[in-house]
């Protein structure tokens, strides 16, 4: 993990992989809960965790170096700093014991781009659906729109490109794939991800706490509706 300064009030933790990101995220959230970290925002992403709203980034950077053993170090993790085996896609590996919990999303696998995904994966459509149902996903991070979760868990070899031309309107609840990720559109928006299905589960509601159903670290299964 490498720390990069970002402006006057932020630090970017450059991680080696998504598992290290998740380990640092969980650890930093825990440290903040305990009052040892003053970050206003802790924002995990694909390979980084951004700490924003720091009073003294240099002090925080020094502090990060003393939080030893660094989370993500294999075999030495204690308590909630799990280094779950996401990426394997093996059913039943529920090792993620972070506070984020698990969510089953009921999905109707009727997406318009299922044949395209089947083509990229060089399998039949039912096999695509079976693989998606059988994958334990985890929310790597949120972005693009409030409550839009980037789900990791598919093997790297199954990454798919986006549509060359994005659709002007993707309906809310659309379950879709792009790159190494699965995602669900919380609200209707333009989008270039490949549509594999849809869900009626509300994913973002400002009147619930937290407003997003899928928060970073949450384990997710896309079960048949």
């Amino acid at each position, binding site marked *: 993990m490498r720390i*990069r300064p970002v402006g006057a009030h932020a630090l970017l933790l450059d991680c080696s992989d998504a598992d290290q990101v998740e380990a640092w995220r969980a650890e930093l959230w825990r440290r903040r809960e305990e009052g040892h970290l003053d970050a206003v*925002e*802790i924002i995990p992403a694909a390979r980084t965790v951004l700490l924003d709203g720091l009073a003294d980034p240099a002090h925080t950077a020094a502090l990060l170096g003393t939080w030893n053993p660094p989370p993500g170090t294999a075999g030495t993790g204690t308590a909630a700093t799990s280094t779950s085996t996401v990426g394997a896609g093996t059913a039943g590996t529920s090792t993620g014991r972070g506070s984020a919990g698990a969510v089953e999303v009921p999905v109707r696998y009727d997406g318009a781009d299922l044949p395209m995904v089947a083509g990229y994966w060089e399998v039949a459509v039912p096999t695509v659906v079976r693989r998606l149902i059988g994958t334990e996903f985890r929310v790597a991070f949120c972005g693009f*729109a409030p409550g*839009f979760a980037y789900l990791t868990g598919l093997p790297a070899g199954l990454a798919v490109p986006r549509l060359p031309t994005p659709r002007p309107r993707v309906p809310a609840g659309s379950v879709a794939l792009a790159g190494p990720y699965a995602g669900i559109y919380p*609200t209707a*928006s333009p989008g270039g991800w490949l549509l594999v299905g849809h869900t009626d589960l509300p994913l973002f509601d400002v009147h619930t706490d937290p*407003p997003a159903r899928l928060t970073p670290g949450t384990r997710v299964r896309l079960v048949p509706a």
Partner: protein
Amino acid sequence: MTGTQPVGPKSPNVPGSGDVVEVLRAGILTTVQDLGRPGWAHLGVPRSGALDPGALRLANRLVGNPESTAGLEITLTGCELRFHRATTVAITGADAPVQVGARPGDVGRPLAVPAGAAVRVGPSRTGLRSWLAVAGGIAVEPVLGSRATDTLSGLGPPPLHDGDRLPVGAPAGPPAPVDATATVPAPDEVRLALRLGPRADWFTPPALDLLFSTAYTLTPVSNRVGARLSGAPLPRAVSGELPSEGLVLGAVQVPADGQPLVFLADHPTTGGYPVVGVVVDVTPLAQARPGTTVRFYGPQRGSR
């Protein structure tokens, strides 16, 4: 990218007992703004809030409000409002003609508004945006702790339309005893301090020289999300895609065309183009009209 369905209340509730402001003319873009909704970025919720928080804070102090109270952010063409009860307003930011009823008023002073009088903010003479505070504040329903309109995600109340009626809260205290405040001039050229990083190493050394030596021009597609600049494109040292990473206010992102974009209050929470540096204070951009020259300077060349 913009949500088509605002999650916030579409037509803000007007409490029966409360005061009301009526929008006679909304102008090209008038939004409700406070100090935004920090703390939700990990869920993809932008910070939003007034583009010049200092100007909104000042307007609030002038009318006796807590500094974080919601007011209106008014863009270029001004707006016209009718207050149903006698109240106090203050307008800060751009140099714009102000009228209360038939009487001319001033920017940067508390203005007494008689019941039923119209407050008119005219087109700004210099600068781009004004902030209007009213005693008691704009009392639309907060969304995730803020009443701010987020033009990117659609959270918060929609931008004002002609004929809207917005609730006004109960005054918190007396207006400030003040004669005048200094208005900030809107220069033809904006100079912005820039700290390199986190991805300055994605650019060639000549690109960083260009960044600090080019007179960029603010383009008309700039908005509350970001100030888009045109000028010398910045060549990359690293090709390929950057995995999405978190963004801060003032981040200078460089998309594939090499033209920098400075992120403002409604910026997305993550982005997939490298951020070459971060502008220390973006508030001068709140008043910069399209065509304004933008230059970057930085004391810490070479360090990262």
